[in-house]
């Protein structure tokens, strides 16, 4: 009999307690961020700096060292260079730099070895496209050719070297 009464009393008190908690929630501010149109602060402010959005390559400072292409675990970066017969010094030029952002898993292994931080993440993620081929970003415009960036000697000395400096370089490019 006492078990019977204990059940009733316990149910009553725990329901009472639970109800008071949910009722108290009526006096709290909802936490929903009403993306996309009613967000209090502009979107880019709410996204942290290290956010790994779409990849972007800053072609001015890309030295075509192919470090990112080799380090990508799923090979979604393709860089093609060729000898440039027209110019006198016959140095290499970039003819193709494609990143398949549909296959990319945004792991960030390509941004680490980049000596000059050319390849880095942006805060942009809203890019739904009808055709999946639109998600292949071509950073060398069709038909044109880009001359890779040669860091001046003084800077080059400090630019190279092990993981720590690259992370530093990458850090600065990112912040």
């Amino acid at each position, binding site marked *: 009999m006492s078990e019977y009464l204990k059940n009733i009393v316990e149910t009553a008190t725990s329901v009472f307690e*639970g*109800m*008071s908690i949910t009722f108290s929630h009526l006096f709290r501010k909802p936490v929903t961020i009403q993306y996309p149109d009613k967000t209090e602060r502009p979107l880019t402010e709410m996204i942290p700096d290290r956010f790994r959005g779409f990849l972007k390559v800053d072609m001015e400072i890309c030295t075509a060292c192919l470090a990112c292409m080799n380090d990508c675990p799923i090979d979604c970066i393709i860089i093609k260079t060729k000898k440039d017969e027209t110019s006198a010094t016959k140095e290499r030029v970039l003819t193709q730099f494609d990143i398949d952002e549909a296959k990319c898993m945004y792991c960030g292994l390509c941004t680490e070895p980049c000596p000059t931080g050319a390849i880095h993440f942006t805060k942009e993620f809203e890019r739904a496209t009808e055709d999946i081929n639109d998600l292949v970003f071509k950073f060398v415009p069709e038909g044109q050719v880009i001359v890779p960036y040669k860091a001046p000697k003084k800077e080059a000395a400090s630019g190279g070297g092990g993981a720590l400096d690259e992370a530093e370089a990458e850090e600065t490019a990112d912040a």
Partner: protein
Amino acid sequence: MQKLADLLIQKIPALQPVPVDFVYLGVQVVFALVMLMAFVAPFAGIVSWVERRIAARMMDRVGPNRVGPQGFFQWIADGIKSILKEDIIPTAADPILFRLAPYLVFAGMFAAFVTIPFSSGLIIADLNVGIFYLIAVTSIVVVGILMAGWASNNKYSLLGGMRSAAQIVSYEIPAGLAILVVVFLTGSLSIQDIIKGQGAYPWQWYLFDNPFMPVAFLSLFISSLAEGNRTPFDIPEAESELVSGYSTEYSGMRFVFFYFEEWANLYLIAAVGTALFLGGWQIPPEVKTWASALGGVVGFTLPHALEFATFFLKSAVIVFIIIWIRWTLPRIRVDQLMSLCWKYLTPFGFAASLGVAVWMVVFPQGVMSVRYALCAGAATIVLYFFYRVAYQVWYSRQPIHVNPFV
């Protein structure tokens, strides 16, 4: 209803030759149509919006606020959407029963609104067996649900249908017993008489008439929750187990009929509770005399309007409590559901009816001191509850924010 019909006959001479009974019938049918179309259907829709907003605020969310001002027309949008949706009938389903089930569920629910009063005069049919008719009609819903569960030829629906049949049938007993207790006090089955037997002030309500009445009210409330398939008894369509029970195979407007029934049922549970225990549409006599003394059309309509307002307010409070329970408590298992019904609610029902019978023999006129004591008890519980809510708000150390339309 008679006064309204007689008024109509004097005003419109063309109605003179028509036999009087046909005119009464015509007025009742028209009033029923108007009441269903203008009050119950929109009420079910608005309650769906209110429930989603309350649920959202209890979960620190916002809830629908895009369609219309603060999302008020969300339910119209849902209605139109579901009408436009493709209405799939599974090939292996039993064609006739599958199509018939929602209408049975719908009819069972709407037929019950015939005896629900709105004010002293406004009632479709003041049957002298009002409350008995109401219990009988709502069990047609069980047939509809079973039919839906069986006809959709899907294992989950079958399980859902079986569970809901067992649940609704077995919870008729405690509900009936609780209503029996009220009928003891009034001596009549008609809902208008039950309400007339109570007064406007809380100590005149049946709820505080004697110490057994709160027990009867709680057991009626819990068992009508179970009959309405509301949490913590929403086992037939337990999303997490049976995907959505008997309404799994339904789509489009047929699916909405089931949910329409559930939200309309909310008002039915609240109306029965208010009419039987909380003094229905009773307003203080002074207010009534003052209102009718205003004379003319206003004098005729104002008392009824005030009566309807009190009835609707009390029902709205109960509807809020039902919604609020749904978003607080977890679901109980089927065997616990059965043991709750047979081991707890039914014994309470018998004890309450025995107690009230003895009470009425010992104190034919009832004891005012007991009524005041019960009123005071209820008041302290409510006060302690609001103290507890204040403690929760303080304990969570979150800023207080009251504006519901954020």
